[in-house]
């Protein structure tokens, strides 16, 4: 019986594991269907140019979704990403316009600005123990305020920036647009780290049970701090890329963008209360949402409907997720046989079986009467 039980449990667990992967798979299927359906109406939708455009549109939001995943798996959230992006983008543009800096410096400055914003968030969350939602709602205003103050109504235009820099925003290497390439490299690195590094796994542990994480000796504060700094740095980088891509920057760049990012993360299957979800899922979520945006245009859906459709899809995604999770849970419960957790001869293990006449009973008989 024992092996059978374990096998059953295994298959149930495998089912759960598959479901987690199914999340990514499901997103791919959804993307496939979306591309297919749209291509039937307009074959150019899967043309090279169109695919390039879609990837370009996704790159920045995907980058932010990757960063957001780092904080969301720890049961936190960063609503300030839009403001950080805006600040970094504007400062980048400003430096180009007024100081003619080299491109490398622009990237460095943008990333550093983002990281510094991340440090502010990180200190407030990890050291001062303020809920991230509150902190980043506050810094969302603060960073944007600084952005406004710096800009003072100014706008930086494409003509102010070197064309080599603008090329990064729209150019390609070997036919692959640069922006998505950058996003892809960072995505791969993040995905590898989240899966294979201790610190990556610890982020999941923190999100799953913060108190237990502390007891397990995980430096919770430090991990949270670092994940906010990384998210900030990614937002900062995204800001530089934004400048390269859009060419026109004022203080309002990426206002309200944080909701798109959170939506992508949620559609990508990252649990909003931490502990599960992958950066790949989040990036696919971003891809799906931006593809939907493009497809609706191509499908000539009334522009007014777009937002409503996005919202409905978001709800659909989390609902399907939930239904699948409930099913998996049920499967697990059905397969786990009752009271079979302790098995006398489990796996043919070394310890000798207890005396056959001692019943395995849920009783801890006191006064030592049954223990001879």
């Amino acid at each position, binding site marked *: 019986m*024992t092996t059978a039980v*374990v096998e059953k*449990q295994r298959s*149930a*667990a*495998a089912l*759960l*594991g598959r479901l987690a992967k199914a999340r990514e798979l499901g997103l791919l299927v959804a993307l496939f269907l979306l591309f297919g359906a749209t291509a039937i109406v307009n074959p150019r939708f899967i043309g090279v140019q169109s695919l390039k455009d879609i990837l370009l549109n996704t790159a920045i939001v995907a980058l932010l979704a990757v960063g957001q995943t780092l904080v969301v798996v720890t049961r936190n959230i960063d609503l300030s990403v839009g403001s950080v992006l805006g600040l970094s983008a504007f400062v980048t543009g400003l430096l180009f316009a007024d100081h003619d800096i080299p491109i490398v410096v622009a990237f460095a400055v943008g990333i550093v600005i983002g990281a510094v914003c991340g440090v502010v968030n990180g200190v407030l969350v990890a050291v001062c123990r303020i809920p991230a939602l509150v902190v980043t709602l506050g810094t969302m205003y603060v960073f944007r305020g600084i952005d406004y103050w710096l800009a003072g109504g100014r706008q930086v235009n494409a003509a102010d920036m070197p064309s080599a820099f603008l090329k990064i925003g729209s150019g390609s290497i070997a036919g692959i647009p640069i922006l998505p390439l950058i996003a892809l490299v960072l995505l791969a690195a993040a995905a*590898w780290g989240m899966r*294979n*590094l*201790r610190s990556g*796994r*610890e982020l*999941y*542990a923190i999100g*799953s*049970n913060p*108190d*237990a*994480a*502390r*007891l*397990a*000796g*995980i*430096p919770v504060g430090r991990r949270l701090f670092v994940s906010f700094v990384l998210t900030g740095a990614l937002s900062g980088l995204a800001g530089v890329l934004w400048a390269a891509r859009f060419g026109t920057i004022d203080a309002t760049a990426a206002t309200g963008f944080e909701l798109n990012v959170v939506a992508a993360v949620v559609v990508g299957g990252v*649990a909003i209360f*931490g*502990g*599960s979800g992958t950066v790949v899922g989040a990036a696919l979520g971003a891809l799906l949402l931006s593809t939907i945006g493009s497809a609706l245009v191509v499908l000539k859906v009334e522009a007014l409907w777009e937002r409503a459709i996005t919202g409905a899809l978001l709800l659909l995604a989390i609902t399907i997720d939930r239904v699948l999770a409930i099913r998996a*849970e049920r499967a*697990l*419960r059905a397969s786990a046989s*009752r*009271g079979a*957790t*302790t*098995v*006398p001869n*489990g*796996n043919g*293990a*070394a*310890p000798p079986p*207890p005396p056959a006449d*001692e*019943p*395995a*009973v*849920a*009783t*801890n*008989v*006191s*006064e*030592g*009467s*049954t*223990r001879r």
Partner: protein
Amino acid sequence: MALTRTVSATALKRFIPLIGKTCNGACPVSHSEPSRPLLSLEGVGKTFGALRALDGVSLDLYPGEVHALMGENGAGKSTLVRILAGVHRPDTGVVRLDGEEVTFADPAAARDAGIAVIYQEPTLFGDLSVTENVFMGRQPLGRFRAIDRKAMRTQVEALFARLGVALDPDRPASGLSIADQQLVEIAKALSLNARVIIMDEPTAALSSREVERLFTVARTLREDGAALVFISHRLDEVYALCDRVTVLRDGKFVSADPLADVTEDELVRRMVGRDLDALFPKIDTTPGEVALKVERLTREGVFTDVSFEVRAGEIVALAGLVGSGRSEIARCVFGIDKYDAGSVTVRGSSLKAGRPTAAIDAGIALVPEDRRQQGLVMELSIERNATMTQMGGLARFGLLSGRAERARAKEWSTRLQLKYRRLSDAVGVLSGGNQQKVVLAKWLATQPKVLIVDEPTRGIDVGTKAEVHRLLSQLASEGVAVLMISSELPEVLGMADRVLVMREGRLAAEFDRADATEETVLSAAVGRRAA
């Protein structure tokens, strides 16, 4: 995976501490000792707010001993454990490791110093696999500092084999029963190869077979020269496993002796500070009307076709293996879960399924098995918790007044001899036993006709336990129908007028008080004819 202690120098092997009976903890280790303590506490104090949880406590742990830590609820045992684990820092006093004074900045520091802790409350990561739970923060690394999953998996399988656990290492930890969670915790502690292993009530949710398995492992560890701290409220376990015992009372050190030198009665007296009354003060009553009638109750996959009745003034015990479905029945009767078939009748009128409010109105009260999650709202004050079930009754014209609540809460905390500082304190700062009293207060205040208690004395010290038993007995004598779910056979046999035995979701047997013996009940629970 090799679990043998590599440190085990021959000199340490099979060492049995021999300490004078009168030595009062703080006394220096005499020169005749063959070894100095591995870990020691000296005059440690810890204060929470105005509460002195520990006050000048000392403790010496020698390699190769199992040291019992005993004391009533709230005596400060878990607090002491948390200090050793680096969770809390002591306000006063010092911790010495190998004679050196140390400060554990955080749990990782303590862990790196070779201290493993199994906490009273399981601390698992529900979203992660069992394997990851065991190795979180110390996963074996392979190339590029990446986690070596294969090695991790092999080690976990070896650990589980050693513990005799048949758990799928890849399943997520969420959904594990409390017993399984505890087993994962134990595997985690073992995997550390620690020199000091602290177990805070590890057996509270384990079956006797699992307990025995744990003891075997603990004894091997002792042989290998590790120092173990074992906390339990069950005297038999303490006597079966431990070598020495330190007793705490009200955060103060009382005594430290070899267990062989202390009788059970003496130990209890030291813990409680007075002589105990009879352990199971059952008052004989004549059962009255049928108060609770359960007919052919079924919940798919959980329990099937369960029928029984409980009369006013009667205590009926529901016994059985862990996971035999007893708690689930209680949940269904009370309306937390819905049942698929059958009916529940309270004093003649049938009860709507899935409606706790209906159950409460009908006069049912349920003291759930998990008081932290189900019994109490930890952040809320004692008074709010105690009056939570009677808010409707306390309200006048639909409005509540704080004064009425406080009066009601005070009345019941006095009756149950609750130890607290202020009624407005969060209930979470109370010790386990006192928390259980608040749960009892909150339900007794509804003046129930049918009282269901699920593991009413789990994790409760002997003194409080006796109080709870007396309370149940008295309630029954006042005409309350009591349904008691318990995994402690002496409690079942001592308290119950009738014993119902569950097996695999079915009612397996029913015994009158006279017929119920350990033999008969156990046999029914495992499905064998009484020998």
